[in-house]
């Protein structure tokens, strides 16, 4: 540090205007791939938001029973097709905290419907961390604590109730447990099959490749839904909900792998000629080791992106199957099963809230699409 005659302090070190830039660049070049991908992904606003949203949704799943005020199959026979209730904070100008109004029902003798009206005379305060009907937290711990519930004699149906008087909001939360995991299990099945057949075909080539390639082509040229229908019609009707759930997700995965296998195969065909593969082979690595340790890590990120893009198809597939009555069945709760009740157009017109499960479906599928697009765009961090 030197002091100039006019009293200013000046640093002795030589000034390099590009120093900061170079430092960043050098760090960029040295950083591991996942850091680079993450850095680029962060700039993809929509993808990032979707990713966080999906993460929250999946983290919520084990606690669905806690957040939901009721359990999935709890019935209120007095409140069939009760419209959504709002949570109010102020009652007649004074603050009383979150409360609901009781619903009074009376039959309308001209339309033959029950008409529900909120009775706004007395506010009923919601209680928090209260005791309700018991459920299993994360499927393990039996408890009866709920995030919020209404006092005795009053109901809190945030999104209305269905034809058996069950709370739609709670059912959508419980339904998410099945609807969201169907895609994950399905994609696992499809991943295992796709990577296995794709890598075998691409690595060995020859007649194995020919056979696998034909199978891929044939499966890809067939319409999925009729085959899904046929396969799920084969599920015995006396199986329990859990078994049906697993078999349905496996069915969804079985027809999805050809697309993945094709891209794995194409990648392997070009990668197996690389020097490092030859080197590994020369050093005596078995084909299995070359595939697992040297080839697959090269494009796992690519595979993850394509998996993200095919999960929505599975969620929609499960919804369609359950909607048609060939997927999950009644005691199980999924969004497709719930929409099965909304099949009747007249019903939907009168009780519009029975069609509400379509909203989470659309939002989740959109989020997966945005996340997948973001991942795909940021996978090549060196490309501008």
């Amino acid at each position: 540090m030197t002091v100039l005659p006019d009293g200013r302090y000046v640093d002795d070190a030589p000034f390099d205007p590009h120093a900061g830039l170079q430092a960043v660049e050098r760090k960029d070049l040295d950083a591991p791939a996942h850091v680079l991908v993450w850095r680029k992904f962060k700039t993809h606003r929509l993808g990032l938001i979707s990713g966080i949203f999906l993460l929250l949704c999946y983290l919520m799943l084990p606690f669905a029973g806690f957040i939901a005020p009721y359990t999935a199959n709890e019935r209120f026979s007095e409140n069939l097709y009760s419209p959504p209730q709002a949570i109010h904070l102020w009652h007649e100008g004074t603050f009383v905290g979150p409360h609901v109004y009781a619903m009074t029902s009376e039959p309308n003798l001209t339309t033959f419907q029950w008409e529900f009206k909120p009775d706004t005379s007395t506010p009923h305060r919601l209680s928090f961390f209260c005791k309700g009907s018991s459920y299993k937290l994360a499927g393990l711990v039996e408890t009866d604590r709920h995030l919020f519930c209404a006092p005795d004699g009053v109901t809190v149906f945030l999104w209305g109730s269905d034809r058996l008087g069950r709370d739609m909001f709670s059912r959508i939360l419980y339904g998410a447990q099945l609807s969201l995991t169907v895609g994950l299990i399905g994609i696992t099945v499809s991943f295992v099959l796709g990577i296995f057949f794709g890598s075998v075909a691409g690595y060995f080539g020859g007649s194995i490749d020919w056979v696998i390639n034909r199978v891929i082509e044939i499966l890809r040229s067939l319409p999925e839904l009729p085959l899904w229908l046929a396969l799920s019609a084969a599920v015995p009707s006396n199986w329990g909900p859990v078994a049906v759930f697993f078999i349905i997700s496996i069915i969804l995965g079985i027809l999805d792998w050809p697309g993945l296998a094709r891209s794995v195969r194409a990648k392997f065909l070009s990668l197996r000629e690389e020097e490092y593969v030859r080197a590994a082979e020369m050093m005596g690595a078995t084909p299995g080791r070359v595939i697992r340790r040297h080839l697959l890590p090269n494009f796992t990120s690519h595979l993850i992106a394509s998996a993200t893009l095919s999960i929505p198809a599975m969620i929609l597939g499960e919804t369609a199957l359950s909607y048609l009555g060939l997927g999950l069945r009644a005691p199980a709760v999924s969004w497709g099963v719930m929409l099965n009740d909304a099949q009747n157009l007249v019903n939907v017109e009168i009780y519009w809230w029975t069609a509400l499960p379509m909203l989470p479906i659309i939002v989740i599928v959109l989020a997966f699409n945005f996340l997948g697009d973001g991942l795909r765009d940021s996978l090549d961090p060196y490309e501008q």
Partner: protein
Amino acid sequence: MLILRYAIYRFGTMLLTLLVVSALIFVIINLPPGDFLSNQIAELKSTGQSAGVAKAEFLRKEYALDRPLWQQYLIWVGFIPGPHGFSGLIQGDFGWSFSAERPVAEIVGDALWLTVLVNLAAVGFVYLVALPLGVLAAARSRTWVDYSSAFVGYLGLATPNFLLALILFYYGHRYMNLPIGGLMDPSFEGQPMSWEKVRSILLHLIVPTFVIGTSGAAAMMQRLRANMLDELGKPYVETAIAKGMSPQRMLVKYPLRVAFNPFVADIGNLLPSMVSGSVLVSVVLGLQTIGPILLTALKTQDQFLAGFVLMFVALLTLLGTMISDVLLVLLDPRIRYEGREA
């Protein structure tokens, strides 16, 4: 001449594929334990109706259901003679529907060409919508036209087909007085063709076409946009503009022609999902296509009916894919006629 040879080659591979598919479908159909007749026999026996049992046993013999599975398959396709000589799919005998107690051919009847019609309309819709919108989105990229079409496209991809069908049906009926349900007015059913009937069918087609085509159109549009953007960055575009060609004429004359090829090739990829969609939408909207027939046949284990419908759906997609492949070769002389070697 070369194109003819390619078409014949492509037809041959399609037939082979169809053969494999028939075996696959037969296996899937026979996956559920038991079959329609043995279930019926068990039920009749438990209620003590011996007359019905005899009839069911007779049907079992008649349709060779008492033989081993591989023989059943060969008889079904028509490779080996059944109890009444060769009468399988190849010979044009589609079998007997046990639940309806009528021949399969009689049940599916009209549904076959209505299915083809619905799918053709959907393909037409995809081209009609995706072509102008894709070009427009590319030419005006990063403007509101581009963004709003992308938004609609995403929404189209994310909304389940059957929900879109319900919503559109409701609003279409309410505000535009579009007819609800079915593919024609009930009074025209079974009637010979007339202008009134055609008009009724066309009116009923609007909503299904829209529903089946939307997601396909969205995907197609995005791909066309990407292809067009690639082409628009090339030097020949700059040359054309520099020489004073009007933008519209230039756009249609050069980049569009190149970007058009994947457009045709894509229909082969798109068709399976569109046929899937049409089956689902037909069930939801109660169209008289083979969709609802398939669903009931699968639920009642009516194996010949379900098998035939699945075969027909597969044939429809395979034919469509073949046609698109041949068209592509016609359009793009750069593509080799031989089978592509990877």
